């Protein structure tokens, strides 16, 4: 058995064939580009971001044992020193996002096979988009009933965008606010197409 399956973005076809502004970028490169962009709105697919879910009464301890941060409240997020972040998505559920630096925890997480007491791993394969620019909040205002004009940073919001469930995490880097939107991968094509159209509309008309 020589063949190994490849991880693929649900958007790979769309992004390759259509978007220049929205090329798929490795996460850290995307942030750099997003901070420098002069576009009023900038949308980028960063679905290469690796997400690892963790659930159960012992999940917080599992994180602590590996020197990973444990956000105190539901929907808060804390950065990982080596890069990435931990989001508390429920009382007993966490989401670890990592990009460049894959910490030692990755292998441990991979070995969680359901036989451990009080902690189970959850496969997360959400599509992730980054939205930034001075009119980024206008894009959300055309699709979502929650006000993001003065967002609470590092606080995850689970809401509906263009009719589908989306997690929106506003955070800032070098003075630039990013809206990181995660969506179920099976809705990714739909949401991407809608957001791209609306980004174009906002760039045209404000």
């Amino acid at each position: 058995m020589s063949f190994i399956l490849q991880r693929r973005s649900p958007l790979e076809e769309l992004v390759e064939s259509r978007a220049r502004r929205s090329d798929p970028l490795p996460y850290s490169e995307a942030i750099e580009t997003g901070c420098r962009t002069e576009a009023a709105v900038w949308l980028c697919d960063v679905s290469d971001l690796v997400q690892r879910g963790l659930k159960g009464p012992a999940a917080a301890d599992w994180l602590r044992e590996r020197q990973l941060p444990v956000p105190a409240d539901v929907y808060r997020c804390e950065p990982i020193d080596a890069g990435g972040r931990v989001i508390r998505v429920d009382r007993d559920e966490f989401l670890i996002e990592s990009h460049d630096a894959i910490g030692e925890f990755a292998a441990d997480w991979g070995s969680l096979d359901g036989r451990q007491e009080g902690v189970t791993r959850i496969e997360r394969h959400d599509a992730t988009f980054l939205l930034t620019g001075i009119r980024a909040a206008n894009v959300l205002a055309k699709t979502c009933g929650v006000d993001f004009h003065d967002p609470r940073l590092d606080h995850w919001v689970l809401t509906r965008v263009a009719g589908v469930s989306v997690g929106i995490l506003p955070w800032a880097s070098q003075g630039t606010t990013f809206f990181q939107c995660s969506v179920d991968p099976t809705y990714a094509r739909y949401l991407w197409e809608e957001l791209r159209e609306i980004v174009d509309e906002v760039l045209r008309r404000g």
Partner: protein
Amino acid sequence: MKILTCPVNGPRPLQEFHYGGEWREMPDPDSASDEAWADYVFNRRGSPDVKREWWYHIASGIWFVAERNNVTDEILRTYLLDDAD
């Protein structure tokens, strides 16, 4: 559109929720008469009153209970069932 306050996610427009019907107590299936069981399964109560209703926040998958005055359409309080007692 009405605003409903999810105990976990805070105040959100109604479109973020799924209505789960009124709160009903299931009679003991072993001892209930056929009539009492049919009443539980099929009948709903619309009389003017404060209703306990199930609501579900779709994006986060959270069920909670809302107490609503169905005359004034005022929501008196919302809570997670675990926190009720």
